[in-house]
């Protein structure tokens, strides 16, 4: 009988201690906060998922819509381009391109060189001088570029 009583006392002591331990960690304010959190979570659970709109930048490109005037301008530009091409082909050879004259001069110089082929072969310096003379006949715009380009003999001397 006394064992039962002491067991009951023991159980009571242990249970009271365990409850007190938990209750000390969970005062009423904490329980109130916990309850608020639970209700908040439940509210969020019920809501349907939020659909985020797809970024506008990635939306499909709108169909190209142009005014009739713009279309007329484009057509006129295309026609003018074609007319220009045809006219360019019919114009005299001299008016085609300035480079054409250069090509003509070069071919004349080459012909001169060929004529002198029967004569004794020129030295390297002479040959290169001729090439340089032919190059001098280039337009002024290309002469700057030519000035920057190293000569073959200069490279040899440098070596």
């Amino acid at each position, binding site marked *: 009988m006394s064992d039962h*009583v*002491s*067991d*009951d*006392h*023991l*159980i*009571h*002591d*242990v*249970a*009271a*201690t*365990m*409850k*007190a*331990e*938990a*209750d*000390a*960690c*969970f005062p009423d304010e*904490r*329980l109130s906060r*916990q*309850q608020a*959190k*639970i*209700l908040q*979570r*439940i*509210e969020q*659970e*019920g809501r349907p998922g939020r659909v985020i709109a797809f970024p506008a930048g990635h939306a499909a490109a709108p169909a190209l819509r142009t005014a009739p005037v713009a279309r007329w301008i484009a057509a006129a530009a295309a026609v003018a381009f074609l007319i220009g091409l045809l006219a360019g082909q019919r114009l005299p050879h001299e008016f085609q391109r300035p480079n054409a004259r250069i090509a003509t001069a070069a071919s004349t110089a080459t012909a001169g060189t060929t004529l002198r082929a029967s004569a004794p072969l020129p030295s390297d310096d002479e040959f290169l001088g001729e090439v340089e003379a032919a190059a001098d006949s280039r337009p002024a715009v290309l002469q700057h570029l030519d000035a920057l380009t190293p000569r073959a003999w200069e490279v040899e001397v440098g070596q």
Partner: protein
Amino acid sequence: MRTPPRRAVAHATAGPADQPERLHPRSKASEVAGAIKALVLAGERDAARDRFAELVACQQRRAVRIAYQYLRDAHDADEAVQDAFVKVFTHITTYREELPFEVWFTRILVNGCLDMRKSRARRLRWVLPASSNTDAPPIEPVAPQASPEERLVASERAKEIAAAVEQLPDRQRAVFTLCHVAEHSTAEVSQALGLSEATVRVHLFRAVRKLRKLLGGEREQKAKL
């Protein structure tokens, strides 16, 4: 079929705030849970949510006591209790009204606590364990009006009891907690833990015997001194 719990003395001496809710014929929590289920089934979710606050309020204290004894950490216990209540609301339509709500809820809570313990054990494999639980304030089971000597003695006793409870095997501690802290009957504990009632009684008997050995032995030693 309900087995009267062996806690008559504990209830007689406990304050009115500690009185458990009687589960026969049907507890208040079971009635509220049934009403919430009906509201959810009727599509009145807002009304069900309002009613759920009532259910949380009446089960919360018991829930945190159980969770704290399982997890021994206030933050984890807090999270486990929150998760359990959210699960209850989410699955309220599966609640069987012929069973006490407390059993269903305890089962959900205990399973959640066990899952959390497993995940914590996995996590702790990679981190150093904390030296002590700084979250828990000192235990003071006695009234704050007690004299400093009484409070000191009570505090020492509380420490001894906490150490003794710590030494119980998991299953014994779980059964003891559910029977004497959560104040469930052995039949309810057997349903909540999925054990036979006889097994629950055996665990409970062994837990009490071990506690008596641990705490009674110390008491006798002190008496001899």
